[in-house]
């Protein structure tokens, strides 16, 4: 199995986790933080594997930081509602 196919399977597993969480009817801070964390993990797999940022670790760290800050801002706003 190639690493691209492994990445696709990881993305499917992360999506399944998001779907199960949404279907569970859970709400609140735990739900919000988990859903956004799963979104961040999916974005990271796409950047690292599909877009090959794993070949440029310095750039990958920069994208990780930017993505984390964006999701942290989103989580703060979502939890404020």
């Amino acid at each position, binding site marked *: 199995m190639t690493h691209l196919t492994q990445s696709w399977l990881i993305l499917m597993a992360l999506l399944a986790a998001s779907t199960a969480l*949404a279907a569970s009817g859970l709400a609140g801070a735990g739900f919000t933080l988990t859903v956004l964390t799963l979104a961040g993990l999916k974005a990271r797999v796409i950047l690292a594997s599909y877009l090959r940022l794993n070949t440029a*670790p310095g750039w990958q760290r920069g994208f990780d930081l930017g993505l984390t800050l964006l999701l942290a801002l989103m989580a703060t*706003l979502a939890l404020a509602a």
Partner: protein
Amino acid sequence: MPPTQTTPHLPGELMMWILILSELAVFGAGLTAFLALRISDPTGFAEAQSHLHRTGAGINTIILITSGWLAALATRAAEAGQTRRLRTLLALAITLGAAFLTLKASEFIDLSTQGITFETHAFFTFSYMLTIFHAAHVLAGMILLALVAKLKTPAAVETGAAFWHMVDLIWVILFPVIYLL
């Protein structure tokens, strides 16, 4: 998944990365504004969200993630000089893009028949704006993938696929914010 070889440079075309960063900034700003507005009317936003096709959006996530995988495989096929394989993979990725747009259109038609427009609620102003803008990128990506399938050079295919991955990347952030939170 450790990389086979590391480099201090960004992989692929620099201009495509500038575009990816720009689009992430645009969609990030839009989604942040959406969440900021939600603070003033969480009940109204939750009611509005209940009209969306959550299952259809979940299926669309599977579709885009899979089409991204096919586009990434096409990049590797281009590097291996496998023209027929890369064209087949890109054709499949484009077909999945069309499936994504079809599902999205069915949601828009359903909302329209319910009388829901841009002006119905701030939720719909932003959700329509962001998802239609994203759908326009999907359409542009499909055209770009068709063009690079014709060109078939590794650099062209990598650039086209990178645009497609950007579309994928934006959707995995947009989907939970608009449909799940």
